[in-house]
């Protein structure tokens, strides 16, 4: 018999219940080399990052006062940094953060 660790289990044929906002069964932001960092002072809520992120990792917060980053799915492609209209976004090396994903024994 095979012994499958619970946290690595895959449903049959990889068919998962449809996510509401996030797909908690398939967290994929564990291989980025860089991450985007936001300077909220410079941000004018132009929403370019929200529109351009291929993984919907930038969203308005509940109060709709600032955009917030979702680390769980960010692959570090830096499209957001490129598209930011006010240079509020910059890239930072993942290893410089104590929670940098490449440091973790287990992703999240």
């Amino acid at each position, binding site marked *: 018999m095979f012994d499958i660790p619970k946290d*690595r289990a895959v449903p049959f*044929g990889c*068919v*998962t219940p449809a996510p509401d906002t996030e797909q908690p069964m398939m967290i*994929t932001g564990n291989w980025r080399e860089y991450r985007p960092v936001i300077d909220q002072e410079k941000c004018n809520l132009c929403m370019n990052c929200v529109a351009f992120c291929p993984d919907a990792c930038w969203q308005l917060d509940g109060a709709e006062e600032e955009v917030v980053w979702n680390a769980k799915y960010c692959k570090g492609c830096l499209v957001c940094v490129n598209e930011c209209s006010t240079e509020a976004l910059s890239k930072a090396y993942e290893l410089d953060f104590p929670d940098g994903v490449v440091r973790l024994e287990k992703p999240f």
Partner: protein
Amino acid sequence: MAKELTLSGCAAAAQAIKMAKVDVICSYPIRPYTAVMMELAKMVNDGELDAEFVHGEGEHAQLAVVYGASAAGARVFTGSAGVGVTYAFENYSPISGGRLPVQMMIADRALDPPGDFGSEHTDAMSARDQGWIMGWAETPQEAFDNHLINYRVGEDRRVMLPQFVCQDGYFVSHIAAKVKLPDQAQVDEFLPEYDPGDHVLDPKKPCSHGPQIRPDQGAIMDLQRGEAFLALPPVIEEVIDDYNRIMGRSYSPWVEEFMADDAEIGFFLMGAHTATARHAVRHLRDQGVKAGLVKLRFVRPWPSQQVAEALSKFKAVGVIETSTSYGGSMRGGNLLAEVRASLYDLPRRPLTTSFMAGLGGDVIPLQEFYWMAQKLADAVKAGKVEKPVYWAGLEH
């Protein structure tokens, strides 16, 4: 009423697909497989078959269409040949990983170097490691039967895997032979409606097919398919028993032996050239040569034990390679590597070598089989094979 018709391999396959009552068919033209779609298009147009007939924009699209349709719970059929098989390649692994019992017919055609219409197994064999069931037919009759057998095996809840149902282009796909067709009632008894269970796209129960997974989950996905293949052999045996009983056939699930019992030298092959090989064996017997043959019915799952049992009867076996693996361990084809691996644990192994033959759509004439038989007889005499691969008809 059961009836007998004279049908090409493509026309026979179309009859099987009709009797399997498929829901969705996706076509794109490439010869020689196209003839099956011509037949099916007529059946749908004439109201003989109630199926959605979709024209794909290409082979990649064909596989994408049946991927989605199968995920929605439909019994599906598609097919291709040669470079069409390779153009669709990206979709093969997601379909088997998604555990969707898609059926694809391949009527072999040589891959382009730069253009060749003849039959060669390299197109399908290139996809043998994509998690699909795979096997060849020797005749239009066997093609007809294999399509039905494969739907039942692939859709079995213990299996849930897609199937490549292969036949040689031209030699089978376009040469007509007698085909016994069962009654629809017999087919209905053998092949129940496809039941996808919970494994289906349903707007009332939203789900995701084919999401991104983490690298540390990849091995587990692979293991799922690996376990499905481990569970396959008893299901195939059970299904073929059932098929033989209901249809009055006598298929051996894995390998078919011909004059093998007291044989000293033997041919090992699959598909259309087996028909010529049978004649060669008969003629060799007339000359007093103890020859026989073993025909392979499934490449995936590979029946290691049955191959070992069948081939251990011979002193020397010549594997007829109708596909290429340039630079591989056997310096030519694919089958000899699998055959040698199957024989490895036997206490007494037959001598084995391979013959590159029937490539690019070339026929394998009787003289070439006699030449191969001589090489095998020489090996028996010398107690060893000269080399692992010969190019039949191109060397002396």
